[in-house]
């Protein structure tokens, strides 16, 4: 096999992985860290993409500013959703089931809202100026925009990890998954914390959607398509582990890249096969969350 081609595929896989990671990062934060499952994560991805479209193509804003605005917009929308609806079901028996149901209803509602606001035509935005070409690195052609995505993926991974493991805020966020009531007696405003985390997670989703918009078509229903892949990434890496999700995304990306090149016929099944294999051999994902004796 041509080693140059292997390198090329590996690079493709890595780009793919970074977008996967960016999309999944918000879900990891919610599902893995604070133990809230947001089925509608993909819908915020979609909102981010549409907001970016509006900012860039309709309002004529600068692309990078639009990215930030789209992320913020999705985040604010997420915080509203959380504080108006989701908050009401915390602490109920069978909460997890209700989270699924409630956030599923968000998917349905947001789908139609998007249709009402933006119509059903496909939208798309161009890559930002200066990022439409490609550069050669070690003989491999890499689109500059993909490099930007890789950089952003790395930044998000490092930032999230630092934030979660090194700051009080991160520790508090993780503790909400364990015992919200106890935490509140320690002076932590738990509802606010959850709203903020939800906001950050949906902002990450929105940011990912905005970032992916120049590479994809922005269409209704775009949300449902990313949710399964995100779930795979989150679980593959081990719940709530940012580096795990990072690695999970890379594995998924690379396996896909090489499957496309060498077993093209079955490439579309590989995500599931990888997950089955990993989970059967490492039942808690690649990075196991800390094992703890039941007190």
């Amino acid at each position, binding site marked *: 096999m041509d080693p140059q081609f292997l390198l090329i595929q590996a690079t493709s896989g890595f780009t793919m992985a970074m977008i996967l990671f960016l999309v999944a990062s918000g879900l990891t934060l919610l599902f893995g860290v604070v133990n809230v499952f947001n089925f509608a994560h993909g819908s915020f991805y979609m909102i981010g993409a549409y907001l970016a479209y509006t900012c860039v193509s309709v309002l004529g804003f600068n692309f990078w500013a639009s990215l930030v605005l789209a992320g913020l917009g999705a985040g604010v929308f997420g915080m509203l959703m959380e504080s108006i609806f989701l908050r009401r079901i915390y602490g109920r*028996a069978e909460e997890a089931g209700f989270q*699924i149901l409630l956030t599923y209803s968000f998917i349905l509602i947001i789908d139609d809202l998007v249709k009402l606001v933006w119509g059903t035509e496909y939208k798309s935005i161009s890559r930002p100026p200066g990022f439409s070409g490609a550069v050669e690195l070690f003989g491999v052609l890499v689109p500059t925009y993909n490099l930007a995505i890789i950089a952003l993926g790395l930044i998000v991974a490092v930032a999230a990890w630092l934030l979660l493991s090194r700051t009080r805020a991160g520790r508090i966020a993780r503790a909400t998954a364990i015992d919200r009531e106890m935490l509140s007696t320690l002076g932590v405003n738990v509802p606010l914390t959850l709203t903020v985390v939800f906001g950050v997670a949906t902002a990450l989703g929105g940011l990912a959607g905005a970032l992916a918009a120049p590479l994809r078509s922005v269409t209704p229903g775009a949300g449902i398509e990313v949710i399964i892949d995100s779930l795979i990434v989150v679980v593959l890496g081990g719940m709530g582990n940012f580096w795990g999700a990072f690695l999970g995304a890379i594995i998924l990306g690379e396996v896909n890249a090489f499957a496309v090149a060498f077993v093209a016929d079955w490439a579309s099944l590989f995500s599931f096969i990888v997950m089955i294999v990993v989970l059967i051999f490492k*039942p808690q*994902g690649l990075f196991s969350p800390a094992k703890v004796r039941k007190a």
Partner: protein
Amino acid sequence: MDFKREFKTLVPALVGFLFFAVLPAVRTSDYQLTIASNTIIWALFAMSFNMLFGMTGMLSFGQALYFGLGGYFVGLLVCHLGAGWFVPAVFLGVLGAGALSLIVGPMVLRLTGVYFTILTLAFAQLGWGIVVKWYDFTNGDDGIQGIIPPGVLGNKVTYYYFCFFLVSLSLWLLWRISLSPFGLILRCVRQNPDRVRFLGRRVKRNQLRIYVLSSMFTALAGALMAGVDNSVSTEMWHWTTSGEVILMCILGGIGQFYGPFAGAVLMILIEDMVGARTEMWSMVIGIIMLVMVLAFPKGVVGEFANLAARLTKKSGGMEVGLGTNTRS
């Protein structure tokens, strides 16, 4: 006391049974028959799923695997070997699902919690992928059409009664299971698996048993569905199908034996009525769901039971749920 409790759960069952039994006679259009067939079949799917989720606490996101398998056994056998194979195919599908779940079960049961959920999802999606890909054999996402039950079963009313009989029988079985020592052990597995081990019982073994049983009933539902629609499609295998059955259960009330039944009825009626009236069905259904979740946290049946309990002012009224008594 024991008996009184059971009796209470029998009343709604009898009412439901009678309603669906006489429906063909009192219906005003054939379509109502179609809806009724759909409802009872999905109810079977939902209630067998509830044996896993509500009763044993195993949230499988991959029951579509068995629903699809049941449907495709019928579809493929009828398509390749002829309509005469319809009835045998239904039962072969059930056996096939039993066999498959015996293989998949031990693998997914190695995991617990979300990992279990996601692994079941992965297996089901793999099944879906294979069915879509294996075009020559399965017809891919074109699906299989022309699945006409043979002989008298070709008549809609007879076919309805055929389904009605099998569904009633299955539900009766599920009900008996929920009352039986086996059912009791399953509920205990959900609440406190460690302690079950300390009763000298094997947790995984019991989980596997109900996984297999539930999958077989699910396959039966899938097989019967093929005869109602006269066609099967890859949609049956898709994760959205697994999702739908979960939603039905939650909507109806997870902790309630009849919850999933009510959930199935509601979901199908809502989908039908809303879908017929507005292209914005998605938002309308979304809002209905949102309101249900916020206002009726115990599901339709649970809330109804609560109301009944409050009216009769007897604490015993709380115990209507037989499958599982969720904590208040």
